[in-house]
């Protein structure tokens, strides 16, 4: 049986095709758009039988049209959605994929280009054109193909050789509630030349109402020889949001990619992270936390390609599923024949807080080189009764004990976030996922006690 083509199966794909046709003709990015379009049209619409989408149903996309979002966002108080107090960063803000200069910084640092494409110079657009679409893979992911087909606006972050970006770049993607189901697109390209260093914080937030909007966002990252990117991807949108995201990374000789990914749940939230160790000596360290609750769904697929020798990967993901939520974690590490002396480690631990919550976790190691050290481990557990009783036997209520133990499950990863302001922003935000009752989170969030616990004692 041949699989039906996209356009017939899903109103989403039909809407997407209409969307692509409605784009202004752009000479600059014609090439990536056309190849993206071709890939999009050739990929079957994922069903439960599609391996990469086995546990994530796209049924929601087959029932409604997806139009361009309305420009309905009130800029007043918008910064409350994303402000990280105490963080000194450059901000670039997009609402439903559209750049908002009123909320954004103009960044002028020697050796650095950090601009939205809509205001980029010809030279900067040329640089973007040179790199865009080189890393993002369209063969596995329909949404990445579609994102390529719609390249128009986005962020270019380029750091020249030996330059260290002085402040982190905070790229904020806001989605606003829509009357009609809509979809928006966003793109980010990061190029670090030799020995350059930067911190990129990708933040995804939304207004609190029923979202009715799908954001399709792709980030491509090329890290040059000896260069280092500190990367954060923080998803704290409303639970009604739909997100299809991709992070695609090329690592060159002795380069480093350190990434923290935090995802609250959404209606559907899918993130693909693809890291290619293209040249010897590169290092990838990824830490991720996903916390769906209610009926939310989170799906993280990571693909690590060890192509060159002497590279290392250290990957740690932790998930806590509450209520009837579902999470999917698929962690693939692929060691190619030339990737001798690879060190790769993948750990995925999951905590189910309810009998109705689900996790589908699949680690995959595929090894074609003989002199490597690789390990992977997955655990799924419920709260430890013994630990709970221990806390209760000291007067702590069952409710608070459960929250302390749940938070403890992700605390180690949070504590390792090196940017203080981000850590301080995330701790309460994540603790509140377990309860809105502040008296139950007061001890895990007690700052004076916390500071001591962190080492100032």
């Amino acid at each position, binding site marked *: 049986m041949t699989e039906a083509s996209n356009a017939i199966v899903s109103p989403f794909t039909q809407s997407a095709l209409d969307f692509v046709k409605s784009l202004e003709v752009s000479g600059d990015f014609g090439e990536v758009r056309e190849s993206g379009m071709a890939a999009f049209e050739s990929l079957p619409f994922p069903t439960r039988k599609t391996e990469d989408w086995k546990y994530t149903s796209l049924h929601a996309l087959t029932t409604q049209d997806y139009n361009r979002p309305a420009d309905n966002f009130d800029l007043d108080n918008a910064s409350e959605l994303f402000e990280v107090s105490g963080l000194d960063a450059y901000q670039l803000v997009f609402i439903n994929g559209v750049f908002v200069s009123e909320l954004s910084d103009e960044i002028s640092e020697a050796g650095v280009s950090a601009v939205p494409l809509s205001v980029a110079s010809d030279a900067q657009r040329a640089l973007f054109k040179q790199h865009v679409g080189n890393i993002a893979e369209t063969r596995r992911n329909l949404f990445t193909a579609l994102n390529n087909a719609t390249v128009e606006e986005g962020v270019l972050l380029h750091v020249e050789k030996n330059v260290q970006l002085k402040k982190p770049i905070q790229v904020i993607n806001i989605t606003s509630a829509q009357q009609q189901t809509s979809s928006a697109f966003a793109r980010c390209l990061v190029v670090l030349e030799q020995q350059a260093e930067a911190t990129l914080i990708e933040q995804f937030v939304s207004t609190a109402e029923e979202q009715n909007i799908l954001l399709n966002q792709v980030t491509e990252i090329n890290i040059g020889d000896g260069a280092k990117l500190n990367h954060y991807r923080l998803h704290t949108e409303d639970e009604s949001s739909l997100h299809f995201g991709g992070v695609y990374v090329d690592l060159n000789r002795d380069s480093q990619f350190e990434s923290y990914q935090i995802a609250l749940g959404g209606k559907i939230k899918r993130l693909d992270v693809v890291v290619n160790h293209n040249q010897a000596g590169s290092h990838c360290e990824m830490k991720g936390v996903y916390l769906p609750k209610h009926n939310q769904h989170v799906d993280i697929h990571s693909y690590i390609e060890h192509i060159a020798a002497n590279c290392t990967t250290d990957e740690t993901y932790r998930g806590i599923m509450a209520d009837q939520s579902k999470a999917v974690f698929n962690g693939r590490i692929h060691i190619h024949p030339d990737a001798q002396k690879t060190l790769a480690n993948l750990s995925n631990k999951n905590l189910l807080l309810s009998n109705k919550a689900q996790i589908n976790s699949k680690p995959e190691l595929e090894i074609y080189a003989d002199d490597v050290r690789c390990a992977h481990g997955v655990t799924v557990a419920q709260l*430890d*009764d*013994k*630990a709970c*009783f*221990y*806390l*209760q*036997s*000291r*007067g*702590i*209520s*069952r409710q*608070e*004990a459960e929250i*302390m*133990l749940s*938070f*403890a*499950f*992700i*605390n*180690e990863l949070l504590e390792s976030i090196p940017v203080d302001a981000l850590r301080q922003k995330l701790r309460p935000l994540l603790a509140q996922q377990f309860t809105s009752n502040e008296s139950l989170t007061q*001890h*895990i969030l*007690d700052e*004076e*006690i*916390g500071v*001591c*616990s*962190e*080492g100032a*004692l």
Partner: protein
Amino acid sequence: MLSIKNLQAKVEEKDILKGLNIEVKPGEIHAIMGPNGAGKSTLGNVLSGRDGYTVTGGEVSFLGKNILEMDAEERAREGLFLAFQYPVEIPGVSNLEFLKASVDAVRSHRGEEAMDSMTFLKLAREKCKAVNLDQNFLKRGVNEGFSGGEKKRNEIMQMMLLEPKLCILDETDSGLDIDALQVVAEGVNSQRDPNRSFIVVTHYQRLLDYIVPDFVHVLADGKIVKSGGKELALELEEKGYGWIENEGA
């Protein structure tokens, strides 16, 4: 203080306590000794309210209240403290955070004002010192990577912070070397008070050289089969438990 009458309890359908009676008055130290499998640990677990232990008969009155009706946390707040034989490790919850939460819970139950973090910190450091634990242990995960002796000292530190009315030490001496045993015993002795009572559950007489009991009870097959003064412990050490069991028969 504590009055246990004809207490019967089972674990997984197996009867463990079969009519146990003990009367503890304020300020007294009672030692409960007995062979393995007699029900020593079950007693501590039943009194502190652990799930999985079903009381099938009898009464337990603590300061005039029926504690068998209470959740584990309520019992703790009322002033009952169990020092565990095997304290559990809880990575990710810092010792300090845990101690603050428990002290707050207990104080609030007593109607006392919440302690501010700085005052609490000072107090916690003081108690750390008292049990000879490095202050670094405060910021580590609860019991995480602690040695056996450090875990027991952590238990005693918690006891000092919570100021309970009745402390049950469940085989606190197991796995301790002589130095750690002394530290633990000193900690306990420093907490002796006319209004605070102790039940020291132990298999060996050794601990009772350091924590001198007012009464010694022998628990065998779910019942107290013999009671006496501290000299009973010495007799047991000399003759073993078989002597009592034979005497009873």
